[in-house]
């Protein structure tokens, strides 16, 4: 297979999906950033003729796409797997209304939780919401399936889910170029019996949903993306998505039924294939989705009794699970110091979490973002993290459960983007129902974790154009919060003072911790001071080391070495700043009481 620049491109799955959406004639696309889905929207925003936006959350994004579809435009909503939980409300009823313009929900699962808080298998949503689901196995297929999804969506009058995983989104491969197809101009067309879902209409649409599922089942039997690849041997495989590749690598000679459409399943095709093999094995990542439905059909097969139902698969795991005798020995891993992710040098979150780390009695109800890393030692300043926005609501629930005992001990921490995503209603609840818990909004002016997407408070649209910037203080006051404080988290002492006052206050209180993410391009360019360690003054107190900044390291000393360096004999070591890594936040200089950390010229 050659790489011809005229006809092919080298693209990641996310880039290929963006191209596929553009080629399919998508006019409106909305999404919320979430690894591994984020780059789809970023890439799509660069194409002409497509309106793209960052929505505050996935429910908003899907509803925007539904509206565009109702106006007759091909529309796309993108999200990571947990985002579909947020968007599940519109999803289930959009299954009833169906579409005007084609509607695709691009859902990215994250097996192995490379960057997620859970490992859910969203193929289950297709079953539960009665929607067709396509599953590509590489970037080239992902692009092709975008076109197919829009055709099916309009042909069957149904939103279509495309489920990808991390190993599609962030895998690069060779993809064929195409061209943008013509689609009808959007228009207003009233069809209330189809689009107004109140009981009388919904009961009628409920019947339509079942008819459509029947039609989709029949279509699945002849869909080219469901195909039997003949082979030799007694063992046959049914697989889909990325695991298809692992089956092909591990058992290249075996017959394979590759399912491009995973729901609904082509029952006749599966029965016909099953009849040709002696042993049928289903290879799928996460849940036994296909396997369970095969068993419900009464088709004998093996699956999760062999293949793990947790984590990512690969061809090694598949080979070892099915034919362990063919797997040779591999080197055992060595015990090495781990290298977990860490907040960056100069990260404003560190200053805030340093303050919280000194408040040992306070329960820190955390949230989803870079700042979840505040959990890690040495700061260890997060005590719970469940889902987007839950920091605030969990803090409220804890305060209600604890009553007086919890006063001055409950604080929620979440980022600006997370607050806008699903924290606002929680704060409203706190005010309405009363609390003594406090909320810290880490306002770093961006959605940092996923790679610096703009958001409703950043003052810029997805294209970088000026946009209204939400005034967080004003919003909190409008919700009824009387105590709203703003701190600069790089100023450690002032921040600690405000934290103490506000957390102890017996009424709802919001602290906005405001300083831009150090990785923002404008911050990276800004001239910043550099700090260095004045080693003569270092007493080895290790306070600066306890901040966990990657630019600061500890050198242990024996008593002899300490004396040789002119230190007291019992000084256990010294701290040193790696000046090339320093981003000049000055937090360490705030905590050093011995003038051992000094500002140097700007870099």
């Amino acid at each position, binding site marked *: *297979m*050659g*790489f011809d620049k005229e006809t092919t491109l*080298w693209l*990641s799955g996310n880039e290929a999906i963006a191209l596929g959406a553009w080629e399919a004639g998508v006019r409106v696309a909305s999404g919320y950033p979430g*690894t*591994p889905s*984020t*780059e789809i929207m970023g890439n799509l925003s660069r194409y002409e003729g497509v309106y793209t936006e960052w929505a505050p959350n996935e429910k908003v994004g899907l509803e925007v796409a539904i509206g565009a579809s109702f106006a007759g435009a091909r529309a796309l909503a993108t999200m990571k797997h947990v985002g579909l939980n947020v968007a599940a409300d519109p999803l289930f009823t959009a299954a009833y209304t169906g579409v005007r313009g084609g509607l695709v929900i691009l859902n990215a699962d994250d097996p192995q939780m*490379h*960057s997620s808080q859970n490992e859910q298998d969203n193929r289950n949503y297709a079953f539960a919401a009665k929607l067709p689901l396509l599953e590509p196995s*590489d970037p080239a297929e992902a692009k092709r399936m975008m076109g197919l999804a829009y055709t099916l969506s309009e042909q069957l009058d149904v939103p279509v889910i495309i489920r990808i995983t991390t*190993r599609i989104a*962030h*895998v*690069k*491969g*060779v993809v064929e170029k195409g061209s943008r197809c013509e689609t009808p101009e959007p228009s207003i067309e009233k069809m209330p019996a189809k689009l107004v879902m109140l009981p009388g209409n919904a009961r009628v649409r409920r019947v339509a949903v079942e008819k459509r599922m029947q039609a989709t089942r029949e279509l699945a039997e002849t869909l080219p993306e469901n195909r039997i690849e003949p082979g030799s041997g007694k063992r046959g495989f049914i697989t889909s998505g*990325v695991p*298809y*590749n*692992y089956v*092909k*690598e591990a058992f290249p000679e075996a017959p394979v039924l590759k399912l491009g459409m995973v729901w609904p399943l082509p029952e006749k095709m599966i029965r016909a294939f099953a009849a040709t093999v002696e042993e049928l094995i289903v290879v799928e990542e996460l849940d036994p989705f296909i396997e369970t439905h095969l068993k419900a059909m009464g088709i004998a097969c093996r699956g999760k009794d062999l293949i793990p139902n947790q984590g990512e698969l*690969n*061809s*090694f795991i598949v*080979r070892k699970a099915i034919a362990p005798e063919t797997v040779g*020995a*591999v*080197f*055992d*891993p*060595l015990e*090495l*110091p*781990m*290298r977990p*992710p*860490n*907040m*960056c040098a100069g990260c404003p979150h560190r200053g805030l979490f340093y303050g919280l780390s000194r408040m040992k009695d306070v329960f820190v109800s955390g949230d989803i973002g*870079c700042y979840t*890393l505040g959990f*890690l*030692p*040495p700061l260890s300043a997060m005590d719970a993290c469940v889902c987007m926005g839950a920091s605030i609501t969990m803090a409220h629930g804890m305060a209600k459960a604890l009553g007086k005992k919890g006063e001055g001990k409950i604080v929620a921490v979440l980022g600006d983007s997370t607050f806008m995503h699903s924290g606002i209603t929680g704060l409203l609840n706190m005010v309405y129902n009363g609390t003594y818990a406090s909320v810290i909004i880490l306002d770093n002016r961006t959605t940092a*974790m996923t*790679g610096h997407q703009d958001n409703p408070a950043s003052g810029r649209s997805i294209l970088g154009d000026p946009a209204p910037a939400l005034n967080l203080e004003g919003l909190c006051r409008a919700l009824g919060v009387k105590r709203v404080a703003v701190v600069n988290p790089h100023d450690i002492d002032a921040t600690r003072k405000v934290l103490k006052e506000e957390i102890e206050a017996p009424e709802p209180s919001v602290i906005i911790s405001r300083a831009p993410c150090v990785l923002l391009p404008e911050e990276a360019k800004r001239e910043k001071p550099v700090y260095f360690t004045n080693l003569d003054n270092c007493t080895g107190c*290790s306070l600066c*080391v*306890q901040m*966990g900044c*990657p630019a*600061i*390291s*500890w*050198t*242990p000393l024996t008593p002899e070495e300490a004396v040789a360096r002119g230190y007291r004999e019992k000084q256990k*070591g010294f701290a040193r700043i790696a000046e090339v890594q320093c981003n000049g936040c000055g937090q360490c200089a705030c905590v050093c009481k011995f003038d051992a950390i000094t500002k140097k010229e700007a870099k």
Partner: protein
Amino acid sequence: MKQSGNILFSGVGGQGILLASELTAYAQLAAGFDVKKSEVHGMAQRGGSVEAHLRYGEKVYSPLIELGAADILVAFEILEAVRYLPYLHRDSAVVVNTQKILPPAVALGKAQYPENILDELKARHINVVAIDAFAVAESVGELRTANVAMVGAMSNFLAVGPEIFLQVIDNTVKPSFREVNKKAFAAGRAAVHA
């Protein structure tokens, strides 16, 4: 010419692994191979261990290298070379940058950076080529080309000729950095024979 192979890139977030693996992928594509490459984004990039898997051949299905199947490991940091030992086999070549980046537990004084840890690879008869990629990059006058110097060093173990890599640099690197990156590639390639 070898008809298929697996190249694993490892290091610490921010070391330029993605560009290095990208140049290598383009070179293999230019040589007529099918290529797949897998990267990790998001949480894993915040100073944590990062890896990129590159597989090439007539037709590549899986984007992930199997344990025991990496023909070449390009490691941008010493610990991050040894961490991927289970991916190696006895005929693997490991091109490793002699840089040490302290993991958090070491920086905090709670653990030690293991001494002479590359000996663990050598003891298993793995071909270890250690180069000081920063010194190479410094010699061409641009520290930020250390990753391309690593690609140059690695290229000795591939059938794809250096001229293809140089052409790829011409096509993918922005004009102001092209020449210095080509120099870094050549110097990295020469550093292995030296």
